[in-house]
């Protein structure tokens, strides 16, 4: 009986305890915070970008609300409300994470496109540069070939000239073509002999092929006669040759005529053969500097 009484008392106190919880107490701070957190999350981007997390938060809040309305232990209500608040905050954090990730993806996509565009532009420029380079190389090659051919032709012409009786040699001062005096002039005269012109014509042809050159025509005599006479004769002979070359189309201001007299012999003046060698006209062809 005593036991029954005690049990009944315990029973009553339990019911009282439960019904105290049942009393319409104001919602705990945790529940208020959870509601606020959920409302904030629900009105933000979470509903669009992280609906699953927001749903979790909603379920948690509903559980807290149920615990509160069904007068569960206040500690339980506070605990589940605490959890609900965290879930709502998590939904917001998830939404922010996804938004940032999307922003980064958009930016990366833009960067990728910009890079692709840049690469394309660079490739275009490179192709253009390559094409220009190729053109320039071709031009240079053509120029080089042209120059080589011209030099070859000029050399061939000089070789032909040598075959026709004129001497051709390379010296430091340039290419020197030597014509024997007898071939060009009668003894003691400065007028060209008719046969000389044909020979000079061949020289003109060669000179025309040499491109831009400065030509010096030097008249030389042997040592017979006075120096003054020889100097005068050699000067006039050089001028005769120059005048003829100009008449055949060579540029006058690039041709210089000078008389050297007997000052530059190439052989002895003691023999007839030597003297014949000394009587000569030299055409010195120097490249223009």
């Amino acid at each position, binding site marked *: 009986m005593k*036991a*029954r009484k005690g*049990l*009944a008392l*315990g*029973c*009553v106190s*339990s*019911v009282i305890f*439960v019904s105290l919880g049942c009393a319409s107490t104001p919602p705990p701070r945790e529940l208020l915070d959870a509601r606020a957190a959920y409302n904030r999350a629900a009105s933000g981007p979470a509903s669009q970008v992280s609906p699953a997390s927001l749903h979790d938060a909603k379920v948690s809040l509903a559980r807290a609300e149920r615990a509160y309305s069904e007068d569960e232990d206040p*500690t*339980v209500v506070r*605990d*589940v409300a*605490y*959890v609900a608040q*965290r*879930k709502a*905050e*998590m939904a917001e*954090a*998830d939404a*922010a*994470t996804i938004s*940032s*990730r999307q*922003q*980064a993806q958009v*930016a*990366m996509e*833009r*960067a990728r496109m*910009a*890079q692709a*565009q*840049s690469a394309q532009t660079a490739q275009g420029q490179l192709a253009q540069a390559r094409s220009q380079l190729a053109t320039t190389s071709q031009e240079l090659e053509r120029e080089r070939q042209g120059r080589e051919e011209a030099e070859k032709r000029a050399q061939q012409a000089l070789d032909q000239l040598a075959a026709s009786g004129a001497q051709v040699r390379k010296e430091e001062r340039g290419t020197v073509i030597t014509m024997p005096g007898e071939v060009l002039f009668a003894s003691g005269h400065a007028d060209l002999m008719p046969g000389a012109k044909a020979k000079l014509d061949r020289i003109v042809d060669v000179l025309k092929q040499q491109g831009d050159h400065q030509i010096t025509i030097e008249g030389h005599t042997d040592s017979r006669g006075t120096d003054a006479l020889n100097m005068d004769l050699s000067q006039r002979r050089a001028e005769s040759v120059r005048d003829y070359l100009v008449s055949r189309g060579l540029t006058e201001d690039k041709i210089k005529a000078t008389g050297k007299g007997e000052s530059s012999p190439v052989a002895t003046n003691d023999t007839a053969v030597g003297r014949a060698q000394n009587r000569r006209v030299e055409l010195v062809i120097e490249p223009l500097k």
Partner: protein
Amino acid sequence: MTRLPKCAWVALPLLAACASTPKPTERMASTQSAIREATEVGADRVPEAQLHVKLAQEQVQKAKELMDKGDNQRADLMLQRASADAELGIALTREQATKEQAQRVLWQTRELQQQQNPNK
């Protein structure tokens, strides 16, 4: 046979619930795992996340104490709080990391655009 008063049928299950709740070992394990994960993802360098991880750790400690006292139901609720805090710590850390990454990408993109269009 002793008859129980009617109210006992109401009170007994409530009392029994307390006594029969098993130890929340599974939730304990998953919560501790979440705390570890939070630390691994770098919660220590995000103050707000760090705070929640700390709260989670404290709540795990309280849950252990409650389990020692045999209050498994309360321990389970405490672990639910701890778990929510640990997961929030992870979410906040990820949010921060992603924001920083996005910021870096935006800067790089801007720099790239400036390199391409220096006049702009």
